[in-house]
């Protein structure tokens, strides 16, 4: 027997009421819960509206020079960038295409609603009042920045210099550049955006933080740290015969030495002459899990905690080292490793600082419209990633890699200063190897750490080392 229609009407009404309830909860989620995340989305035009309707705050370097400001145009304001070499650090602020770099990361601070100022946030949210914008100060040191720009020239690549004591980024160059003025100008944004998106060299990418490259021999710093902390004796001689394979199960696969070497190597020799077979052997000796653990400690494959958008890198495609050949290749910096120049600068900084890795940050301070500090940006260290004695031993060997007899990285030398560093030539799918240099100075109490990356550089690390020397020299004021 079918039920009465009246009963069915009641049932349907109940179902409708329940659906309305669910819908209300959904609307409540978006209006109340998701608010913080979506309101701070760099592509949210409400944040970016401040670009057009109101002046946005200044972005300034450590010396107080203006890097970005809002200027009045007939129908509102537009952003003007004074230093194109810092295009990737400041980013752009386009009404249509959102914001990037510091413009995105400090979007709230730049419209007078810094998170360090809860009162202004509260007033903005509930009273819809807007404080006049202040400024965001960067750690960029113009002297170091100019040296880095001159050093890189118009080669595709990246240079980053960081103060290892506090993580402030002193210089940041990524080539090729783009013109943030054109992307931030309503009159040209469409054409400029199309152009940069179509460019095969991908100028929009900040190669310092987002560029991912195989680290090559610079990764041997991490392998060495893992070995030292696993009880490997750095003075023990390891036999190197090029080409080398662990056993015949590797078939036609061999690890090659860049200098076709035959001989007995200590770890210091391994660094000085950048010997792949030495590190492949000790990598296999300590094993994949240990190597993976240290890569992770140094932040490869995990967030860098940088204040602007930065890549995590990768240890391997699967995240583990489970094949002997992969362990061997990873140990000398190839395999499936991918890292950003910023990550390698942090590795150098951590070694220089006795194993304490700093948190990298572009901005150092947020100021209000009157110039008073609203918030100091001084994030604590990421942590102690290796033991101090390990870091000291590595530092000694890395000084040797720059100034020892026949050292590969000799060109990074600075007169009167002990420099620690490591070159790298990273084989990659796009052809000519990438050239790397990472280092820090003065070795005993560093005030600067650098990473240099030259894409497809003919002589690999040999090209990169002198640039590292020049940038560190500028930072040391010599």
């Amino acid at each position, binding site marked *: *027997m*079918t*039920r*009465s*229609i*009246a*009963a*069915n*009407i*009641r*049932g*349907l*009404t109940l179902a*409708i*009421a329940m*659906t*309305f309830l*669910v*819908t*209300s909860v*959904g*609307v*409540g*989620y*978006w*209006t*109340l819960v*998701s*608010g913080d*995340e*979506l*309101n701070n*989305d760099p*592509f*949210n*035009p*409400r944040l970016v*509206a401040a670009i057009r309707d109101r002046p946005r705050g200044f972005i300034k370097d450590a010396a107080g020079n203006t890097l970005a400001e809002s200027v009045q145009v007939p129908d509102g304001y537009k952003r003007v960038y004074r230093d194109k070499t810092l295009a990737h650090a400041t980013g752009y602020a386009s009404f249509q*295409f959102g914001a990037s770099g510091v413009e995105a990361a400090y979007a709230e601070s730049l419209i007078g609603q810094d998170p360090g100022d809860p009162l202004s946030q509260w007033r903005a*949210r509930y009273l*819809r009042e807007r404080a006049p914008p202040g400024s965001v100060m960067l750690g960029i040191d113009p002297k170091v920045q100019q040296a880095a720009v001159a050093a890189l020239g118009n080669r595709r690549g990246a240079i980053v210099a960081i103060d290892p004591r506090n993580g402030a980024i002193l210089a940041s160059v990524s080539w090729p550049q783009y013109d943030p003025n054109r992307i931030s100008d309503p009159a040209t944004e469409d054409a400029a955006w199309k152009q940069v998106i179509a460019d095969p060299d991908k100028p929009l990418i900040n190669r310092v933080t987002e560029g991912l490259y195989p680290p090559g021999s610079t990764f041997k710093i991490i392998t060495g740290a893992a070995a030292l902390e696993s009880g490997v004796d750095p003075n023990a001689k390891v036999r190197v015969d090029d080409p080398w394979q662990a056993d015949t199960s590797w078939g036609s696969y061999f690890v090659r030495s860049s200098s076709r070497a035959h001989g007995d190597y200590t770890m210091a020799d391994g660094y000085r002459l950048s010997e792949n077979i030495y590190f492949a052997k000790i990598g296999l000796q300590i094993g994949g899990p240990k190597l993976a653990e240290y890569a992770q400690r140094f932040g490869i494959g995990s967030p860098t905690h940088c204040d602007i958008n930065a890549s995590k890198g990768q240890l391997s495609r699967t995240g583990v080292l489970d094949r002997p050949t992969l362990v061997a290749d990873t140990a000398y910096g190839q395999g499936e490793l991918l890292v950003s120049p910023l990550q390698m600068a942090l590795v150098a900084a951590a070694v220089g600082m006795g194993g304490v890795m700093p948190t990298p940050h572009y901005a150092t301070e947020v100021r209000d419209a009157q110039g008073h500090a609203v918030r100091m940006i001084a994030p604590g260290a990421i942590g102690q990633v290796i033991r101090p004695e390990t870091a000291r031993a590595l530092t000694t060997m890395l000084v040797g890699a720059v100034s020892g007899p026949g050292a590969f990285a000799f060109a990074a030398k600075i007169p009167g200063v002990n420099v620690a560093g490591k070159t790298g030539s990273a084989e990659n799918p796009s052809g000519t190897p990438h050239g790397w240099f990472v280092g820090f100075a003065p070795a005993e109490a560093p005030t600067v750490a650098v990473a240099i990356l030259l894409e497809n550089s003919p002589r690999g690390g040999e090209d990169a080392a002198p640039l590292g020397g020049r940038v560190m020299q500028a930072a040391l004021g010599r």
Partner: protein
Amino acid sequence: MIAVTRRRPELGLLFWVAALGITGSVAVAAAEVAGFRPQQLVVPVTFVVIAFVLHVFLAARGVRGDQLLLPIAAALTALGLVLVQRLASNLLVQQLSWTLIAAGAFAATILIPRDLTALSRFKWTWALLGVLLLISPLLPVIGREVNGARIWLGVGTVTFEPWEAVKILLVIFFAAYLEEFREVLAQTQRRFGPIPVPPVPYLVPIVAMWAIAMVVMVFERDLGATLLFLGIFLAMLYLATGEVFYTLIGLVLLLVGGFVAYHVFGHVAARVDIWLHPFADDVRFGTGYQLVQGLFALANGGLFGAGLGNGMPERIPVVWSDFVFDAFAEEVGFAGALALLALYLLFVYRGMLIALRAPTPFLQLLAGGLSFIVALQTIVIVGGNARLIPLTGITLPFVAYGGSSLVTNWMLVALLIRVSDLTARVRGTP
């Protein structure tokens, strides 16, 4: 001789509607750069006059029964005018004209046909008319394609969405059809174990309706109409039989059809992908731009909203027809959005109450089906705006910009009031 009725509660509520429409319009105008100008009052005042005229018309005709539906529909329409003024002021006069036509259609539906139950006698006529209207956009010359969906008829500059009329015709047809068969079926119910076997008179229309819905989805590329079409049918089938199982069959058929369509038709897959990953980089600047901008608007709403005129709805493409709800919620917040949903729920509740009391199965099914249309449309578009379900082109009843929708929704209100009036007369209540 018709006795004049007093519709006091309705009159009282209409004053609130007048206050809502006029203050809303002034608030929006005041927030604009140009500021408030007295001539802007013409639109809300005209609407208030229309609403009061309709009230007087009902009273003069001696219409009894429900007195809440007219004020609720008027409140929603007033809100719609305020939002069109806010979101697309160049369309405001056009929307006001449509409101006038809608009021005319409302009055006409109160008058014609003289005998409401006579509607059921011509059920096959309604069915044929409905199907013809449904496939009419596929015809050359008069069919129009808008935003990828071919669901419009156009002659010159005047366009009409036949689907809007079809939904009412469908409800009338289903009500008549199901009334006729439900008595027969009560005795011929067979079961296969616990599963009721749908008798042929049910099975045939289930399959036919599903097939027609799929045709709409495939050839007219309108997910919303498909969903509404099947939804109305399944709801009415449930009202008539009380068999949840039939509804389940229908839902399974819908899911199967949807699954196949997802893999075969680009427009369905695109809608689903936007829904699943609106924030993916290749989606948020492309096909998902509209939804992402809508969600930004919702997020900016907070509890009490930015205030009328203070949001940024202009960043949402076609906001005045597809995303009024998000635009509204940004400026009045979660509180305002809840109030709007409550208004719809109240409308549906009153409609269902009318259905409950109606004297014949036909009238019960008719009122239930009509109320369900409003409920389903609201859920589908609000759910789409809030990313609970894939977005479809369904309009928010009474509020969203659009003439065909407004006219048919007001006819729907008139039909509900007539069922209520008839019930009151049969029962001898006011």
